Every structure is written in C-alpha cells, then in structure tokens.
C-alpha cells in the first residue's frame, strides 16, 4: 500500500496483461485459419482500398487541412498550462491565500489567452 514503486509495478503487470488480452481473439482467429476453418483468399479487388466501390484517386498521405493543426496548437497551450495548476491545487492547504492569488493570476492569464484566441477567430471551425 505504501510503496509507490510497488503500485507502479502493479500497473506494469497490468500493462502486459492489457496487451495480451486483446491478442487472444486475434490468436484464436489465426488458429482458426490454421485449422482451415477461416478463409484467407485475398484477391486484387478485395485488397483494394475501400472507397464505396470507386477506384481511389490520388495519394491519401497529403498535406491536410490546417485547422486541425491549429486546434492541436491551442490544445497544447491549454493543457500544458492547466497541468501546472494541479500541484498548486494539492498544495493549497499550505499556501492558502498566497496560493489563491497566484492561481487567480494564472487563470486570468489563461483566460486572456482564450479571449485572444476567440477574438482572433482561432476557435472558429472554418
């Protein structure tokens, strides 16, 4: 209970089991193929890229719409900033009013950032 490393060790064990567990049905499926119960008959049509019956045009791996990257950038800004509030929240018992003032200034800056992005229309999905 008290040993922190032991807890993480348990999580490590759980990680191994979490990777093995979904493999079981896949292995079962593979075994069914070995027993001849499951077909594997690929042909040119079947292993084509699915596009509702139409032949696919052009490469898929192209430069993508910019707005997705914009969202990712805003997310990184916000998430990293918000994570800084977690230690402060836990330590609030010892840094009572000072901590509150610090937190309020921090959140105010965060909120200013949000307002700025809103005004610059970075939050619009165009």
């Amino acid at each position, binding site marked *: *209970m008290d040993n*922190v490393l*032991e*807890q*993480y*060790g*348990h*999580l*490590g*064990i*759980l*990680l*191994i*089991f*979490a*990777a093995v*567990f*979904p*493999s079981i*049905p*896949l292995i*079962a*499926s593979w075994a069914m193929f070995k027993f001849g119960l*499951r077909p594997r008959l*690929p042909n040119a049509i*079947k292993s084509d*890229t*699915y*596009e509702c019956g139409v032949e*696919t045009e052009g490469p898929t*791996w192209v430069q993508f*719409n910019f*707005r*997705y990257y914009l*969202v*990712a950038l*805003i*997310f990184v800004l*916000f*998430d990293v900033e918000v*994570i800084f*509030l*977690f230690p402060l*929240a*836990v330590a*609030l*018992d010892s840094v*009572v*009013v000072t*901590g*509150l003032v610090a937190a*309020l200034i921090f*959140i105010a800056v*965060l*909120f200013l950032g*949000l307002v700025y992005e*809103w005004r610059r229309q970075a*939050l*619009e*999905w165009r």
Partner: protein
Amino acid sequence: MTDLAQLSNVLGAWYDFRDLNNLQRLITEWIAEWGPDWLASIVTGVLGALGILAVIGPTLLILIWVERKVISRFQQRYGPNRVGPKGLLQPVADAVKLILKEQLAPRAADKLIFFLPPVLIFVPGILIWGVLPFGPRMSVADLNVGVLFLLAVSGTAVLVIFMAGWSSNNKYALFGAMRAVAMSISYEVPMVLALLTLVVFSGTMSVNGIVEWQQQEDVIFILLFPLSAIAFFFAASAELNRTPADISEAESEIVAGYHTEYSGMRFGLFYAVELGNTLVVSGFIATFFLGGWWLWGLDQWVPSWIILLVKTGAVYFLLIWTRGTLPRLRIDQLMSFCWKALVPATLLFVVVAFVERTLLISEGWDTTVALPIMAVFNIALTLGAIMLFARVARPAPLRRPARIRMAGTEIGGLRAARQVASRTEEPQFQVGGD
C-alpha cells in the same frame, strides 16, 4: 502446516467479500513466510490484473447485448431476440462469427502500423482500470497522482486511433482519424478542468482520496460542482466517440471512420473497445461525481464494489440514453461548443473552487454549514451558465423563404406560358432560340 484455527481465520477473511484487500494481505503474508518479498508483490499484481480482466471480458460480451437491446428499445424495435433466451447468446454468436471471418488488409496499407492498433487500442482502456477504486484503498495501483495518470493514459488512445487511420491509407479512415484527434484533444481540456475542480476541492490527486473526501464530508461532488459533472459527462462521451459526438465514425459521411479498413476480429476489437471504454468511463464518472464505492453508510453492509457497479450501471444507462436520443452534432458545432462553452464555464468553476477552498481553509468554517451554502451557490451558478448559454446559442429563427419571382421566363406552367405568349414585347430569355 496450517492448524484449524489458522484455517478458519483464512476462511473468515476469504468470505469477507466487502474488502478484497483482506485476500491480498493474506496472500502477501502467506508468501512472505516462504518466499522473497518481490514475489508477493508480483503475485498480488498478477491477481489484480487477472481480476480486472475477469471483470472486463464477460462484461464486454454482456454489454454488447445490453447496448443493442436498450438502443433498440429507444428506437421502438425488439433488438436481438433470436439467439438464445431474449437474444442473450447474440454476443457469443457475433464473437464466433468475427473470429471465423476473413481478415483483409488493404494492399496500400502500411502493414506494421496497420496491424498494431486493434491490440494497442485496448491498452489505455484497460490500464485506467488500474486506478479505479472498487472499495476503500481497493485498486490495483493506489497512486497518489491517480487523476493525472487517468488523464495521461486516456490521452494516448488518440495516438492509436491516428495510427489506425493513417496506416489504412484510406481517405475515409484518414478523415475519421483527423476528426477523432481534433475532437478528442479539444474535449480533453474541459475534462482536465472539470477534474481540476475536484482536485482543488478535495486537495488530493488520488482517485481514492477524492472518494474518501466525499465520504468524509458526506457530500457527492455532483451536488457541489454540477457543471463539472455535466462537462465531464459530455467530454467523456466525446472522447469515447459516442453518438452525440461520433463524427469520427459518422456512418453517413465517412463509412466507419478510422476503422473502415479493418475486418473480421480486428474490427470486433475496435467495436469492443468502445464498449469497454464506455464502461470504465462511467465507472470514473460514478467515482468522481457520485461517490464511488461510498453510499451514506450502506457500504458497511453491502460490498463496496456492488455499490460502485450499480452507480456505474446507472451512468452507463445515461450514456446509452444520450446515444439513443440525441442526434449527431456537426464538427463545427462540437468544436465551438467545446472551446466557447465548456472551456470558459469549467474555467469559471475552477476559480470558484479555488476561492471556496481557500475560504474553507483560511476562515476555518464548519463544513456542515459551509458546504450546503456553497452547493446551493454553485447549482445556481450552473443554472445561470446554462441559461446564458441557451440564450446566446439559440438558433436564429427560421426565415420564410422569399417569394420566387419569375422575371419574364418561360417557366411556370400553361398559364404563365399563355401570359408570355400574349405579351407584345419580346421575353428577356429565350430557350432554344437562335
């Protein structure tokens, strides 16, 4: 050699279902008698992991039936009712069918990255079970940073989804993956902020500590921070790609989204992981906002994990309910709801939580008096925020379409044609003229 007294001691502890920690302690003590320390730790860890898998495995099968049955009831159909009594064996039939199905891999796919996601996508979903407390201090890993662990691990699921979408080399899959990534990371922010209010108020990052705080103060967090609960609920259902926010696998737009190219059991795993994640997320909602294993002293009489299970089931039903009744939202609606409604509102409640917590600490108020007042204030603030949102986000009233005017055209039926023919001047447009 165990004598009779020791055996009865063992059996007595074994039968005390309320706390599985007894079992763990017994095993640890038993191994410590003859084995090294690390063996006890590993054995208890393996048993915990097996216990969690023993919960997940059968529940996944049952949940497939529950989900389909409840959804079909919402849509006024019978749902599965052929295989077995009330269709209960339908999930087994599905699993057998999926195992026996051919697994296709597109020629153009990036093979290695294509084969990994069906397995990897299970990992975060199972790993966050590790910090879910089934009872007092009863979780696989009782981390003191459990909330951070939950957020960090659930965030990695996005990466796996993107692996699936990118490696398929399919345009639908790529669109689905891109949408899933954009939506998941957006809704991660209100999720983090909603949990931050709880961390601020309970002063601990341990999931178990948050439940113990609720037990200690005789209050559940949904009463203290209803808006955080609502935001977390919606953000979670967005992270799960379930129907109010399932644009990443919108059938009518992009076939099946990021798992378009997966077939057979690989598709089955993607299908199962959605249900499994929904279950664990409803477990966490029950833990954070509904008191988890604690229910006003009833946990002394009923095994705590049964209480958690009932609460989880209630939240799960709510998630199916939203899926069964709400229509799918557009991606721009989802994104603007996240950034313009949920993020400012949850940020406001973080401020409220900080201020109220500081007042509680520095003024030394009696919590039995102060907490109900704060709860009433927060509920009023939540209602105000929701009403403000409803006022601002009200859709524009439908405008009557402007009357169609025919400016000298030949369209408009026989009467119009006669009118045109009786005109002396030339019509402005002529069809088929020279």
